[in-house]
């Protein structure tokens, strides 16, 4: 409490706005920070919240999230509120340099002014930590920040959130959370060649070696077959009967969505499941026909499945609720992109543990006892059984990912 008052008093005059910050504004700002999942990138060490340091692998190189504690030398201690707001909404840092859009200002630009202000109030109460970080680890020419001027011209519009009067307050709240603070599209929308969010909104994309799945209302490859309760369960507890949050989504649940209010989670679920904000032609597609049982890969894969997988996932793909994901009729296995599927078979996976679901049951690694063809076959079998239907997985795809992961 001492730190909180001291820092606030010290910085208020410097920040250039005199309104006193009240407990509820700071608390609200803390929750805004949770909604925006600032900690995912800006907290590398739980003992030093917001002191930065989390590396983010991008197709262009590595960026390291900066220190956003109020430390004057290495954090935001000398920033004004207006400078902070410009970073959040325009992607421009103190002194006019350009941020890289790994900082999701293309989403945060939609934030309500009140939310930005409360977040700022909260950040000033955080314990200052001296931790100098050079965010920009990119190779030339991406290391030249001014290239972002052109990028912004092509990929970024500064704007504010406009509720849709046709939709309920809840759907509009969901839209605000998804599009702005939650910045779901940052991972789930495919990026164009420049790294901007492309046109197939929420259609799924590869992030840090994981596939962030399709979250459109498509029932076959998206989340259209999930109930709102199931989607909330996933975001709140880290898992539902279809799977457990792993990879970058595990961090999201850990730092962010498990702490959201239930009202906000339902708003998000109902907005995503409604398809509002999407053009239905983007997602309303017919599922393909499953490959036949006598397809050589499906036939070979069925034997591997019964040997290696059915003990946990059960012979009919039904899984066991709460511990072993159901594979039958599971959109996560039908996706066009098989990165995550191959990855969990090869490397295994440890999902997020939450207070609600502390078990975090792991998928073991099969890299050492299934070869590329076997992995491709068993996945092809799973993707074409019990209501699933999707293109075959090739041994080449498995070999490529195996090689890439070995490099890491």
């Amino acid at each position, binding site marked *: 409490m001492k730190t909180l008052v001291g820092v606030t008093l010290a910085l208020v005059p410097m920040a250039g706005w005199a309104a006193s910050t009240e407990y509820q504004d700071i608390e609200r700002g803390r929750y805004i920070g949770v909604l925006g999942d600032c900690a995912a990138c800006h907290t590398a060490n739980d003992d030093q919240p917001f002191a930065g340091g989390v590396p983010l692998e991008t197709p262009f190189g590595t960026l390291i999230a900066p220190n956003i504690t109020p430390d004057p030398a290495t954090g935001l201690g000398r920033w004004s509120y207006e400078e902070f707001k410009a970073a959040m909404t325009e992607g421009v840092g103190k002194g006019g340099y350009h941020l890289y859009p790994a900082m999701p200002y293309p989403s945060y630009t939609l934030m309500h002014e009140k939310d930005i202000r409360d977040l700022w109030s909260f950040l000033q109460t955080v314990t200052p930590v001296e931790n100098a970080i050079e965010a920009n680890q990119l190779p030339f020419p991406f290391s030249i920040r001014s290239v972002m001027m052109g990028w912004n011209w092509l990929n970024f519009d500064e704007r504010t959130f406009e509720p849709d009067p046709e939709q309920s307050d809840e759907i509009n709240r969901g839209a605000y959370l998804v599009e702005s603070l939650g910045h779901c599209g940052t991972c789930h929308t495919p990026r164009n060649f420049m790294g901007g969010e492309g046109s197939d909104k929420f259609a799924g994309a590869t992030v840090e070696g994981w596939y962030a799945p399709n979250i459109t209302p498509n029932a076959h490859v998206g989340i259209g077959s999930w109930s709102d309760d199931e989607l909330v369960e996933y975001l709140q507890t880290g898992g539902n009967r279809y799977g457990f949050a792993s990879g970058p989504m595990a961090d999201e649940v850990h730092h962010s969505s498990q702490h959201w209010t239930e009202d906000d989670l339902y708003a998000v679920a109902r907005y995503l499941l409604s398809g509002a904000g999407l053009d239905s032609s983007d997602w309303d597609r017919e599922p393909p026909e499953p490959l036949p049982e006598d397809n050589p890969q499906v036939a070979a894969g069925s034997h591997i499945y019964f040997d290696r997988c059915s*003990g*946990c996932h059960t012979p009919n793909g039904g899984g*066991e*609720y*709460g*511990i*072993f994901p159901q594979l039958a009729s599971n959109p996560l296995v039908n996706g066009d992109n098989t990165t995550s599927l191959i990855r969990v078979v090869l490397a*295994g996976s*440890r999902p997020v*543990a939450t*207070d*609600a*679901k*502390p*078990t*975090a*049951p*792991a998928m*073991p*690694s*099969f890299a*050492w*006892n299934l070869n590329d063809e076997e992995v491709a076959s068993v996945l092809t079998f799973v993707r074409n059984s019990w209501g699933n239907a999707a293109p075959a997985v090739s041994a080449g795809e498995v070999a490529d990912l195996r090689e890439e992961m070995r490099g890491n």
Partner: protein
Amino acid sequence: MATKLPPTDAVVVGLGWAGAIIANQLVDAGLKVVGVERGPWRDTARDFNIASVTDELRYAQRQELMLRTAQNTITLRNNPTQTALPMRQWGSFHPGNGTGGAGNHWAGITFRFQPEEFRLKSHLEERYGADSIPDELSLQDWGTDWEEMEPHYDAFEKIAGTSGRAGQLASGRQEGGNPFEGVRSSDYPTPPLKQPYSPTLFAETAREMGYQPFPVPSSLVSEAYTNPLGVTMGPCTFCGFCTNYGCANYSKASAITTVLPALIRKENFEARTHCEVLKVTTDSDGRRATGIVYVDSAGRRWEQPAEIVVIAAFTFENVRLMLTSNIGEAYDPATRRGTTGRNYAYQTANNVQLFFDDKNFNPYIGAGAVGMGIDEFNNDNFDHAGLGFFGGGSTRVTPIGATPINARPTPPGTPRWGSNWKRATVDNYASTMTIGCEASNYSSPNNYLSLDPTYRDRLGRPLLRITFDFTENDLRMAQYVTEKTAEIARRMNPRQIVANPRTGPWDGRPYQSSHVVGGFVMGADPSNSSVNKHLQVWGVPNLFVVGASAFPQNPGYNPTGTVGALAFKAADGIVNHYLRNPGEMIST
């Protein structure tokens, strides 16, 4: 010299079943708890991966989950005239190590002791006469009773997801359950496991003979189960790599599959692994425990002061810590004075093998605790008048999974190696089954635990010495229950049966059972017990010693259900009585 650490509310030594349960209960009561564990942190995902856990050489032969004897072992002898020698490879029993303790590699059989057990001495004297108990036995009551124990059994089963069929509920006798069990406040959390062929055949025969078979209660869950701590288990797949192995399927209950995933998330709890406790420290007059001293993996010594000290290691280390810390008076068999080390007891394991020509039991299908049993010849469920012994055993068929190195059943007379041995293995592997009889072991003044005068561990501390042999009582009982078991076997009409009653002297080399009990027993009288019914040490009210070390003798049942119940009982005593009024809890 040990470096003194900041004090904590409670320190719990050992993070197996007992320690994890107590730590969790104390943390939930608001105490700041430090758990200290001799071995590594164990985790299903990392340590018991399905792709690598089915390795018999690694786990069953090379004993990977067990304590390394180079770190700590015990010495053994049959009687005080002998010189004890140290065990350099575990044989008769398998002490565990690391979080989960021996609860990782246990079989999962989860009996509740019967109501009479808790007042065994009184019960036998009432039924058979005041002087009916032979001098060679030192049976005694536990200082508690069924009504006090039942809620804690119930709590443990709900944590473990125990599968089974109730035999006695408040509403009355339940068909298909164990008719001899105490009345339960609730049914098992999960239904019984499906039964393989050999237990099914045994149960059919037993039923024809008028016995009342029931599914062996098992903490291998039969369906996905989420316990009151929110931790989820998956159904047993009968993989056959169970006893001596960690479970890859999250099916076998242990501290690591049921308690620690929730406990480790709690802010008031801290686990320190690879830290071996050297002693309990006390104040100058020994009336109060002040904390513990432990050594970490770098060899540094630390003193952890605590308001409450809970010792919840395996039986052996519980007793050794009390001896090396001078808690209580060491037991002397010559004078029969002293309580620390007194009433060490074991289990009397018997079996009958059945060799068939026309059966295929698919014996690789198995699990440590899947099977059918009868209790007609257990404990005092039959009239012992005129039999010349007390006690009995749990008769049952529990196919644990016939693994390739160990499961080579061949009839007597078969060569031990060579082509005839191989042929006999092929002929008998699938068509052989075993009926076990896990029988009681009643404590005796001559069986006790003490510090070895010669052998020391790597830190210079004396090893624990076991002085043990089977009593005449137990050997007579073994003959009787094995013959009763053989009667059932004969009725099943195999080609050949081989009866193996336990005979003396006790041999520490072949595996028999890890059910080592006693040595720091509970009771109502400080002259013959070390802890009261709250597991609180007589005369040192802030010290609690919990585990099978508290059993005054061992009935014909596996101990873990009772260890779990005693852990809940000790935690209940601390939280609901001791914290309100710190001191001896004799009258509560």
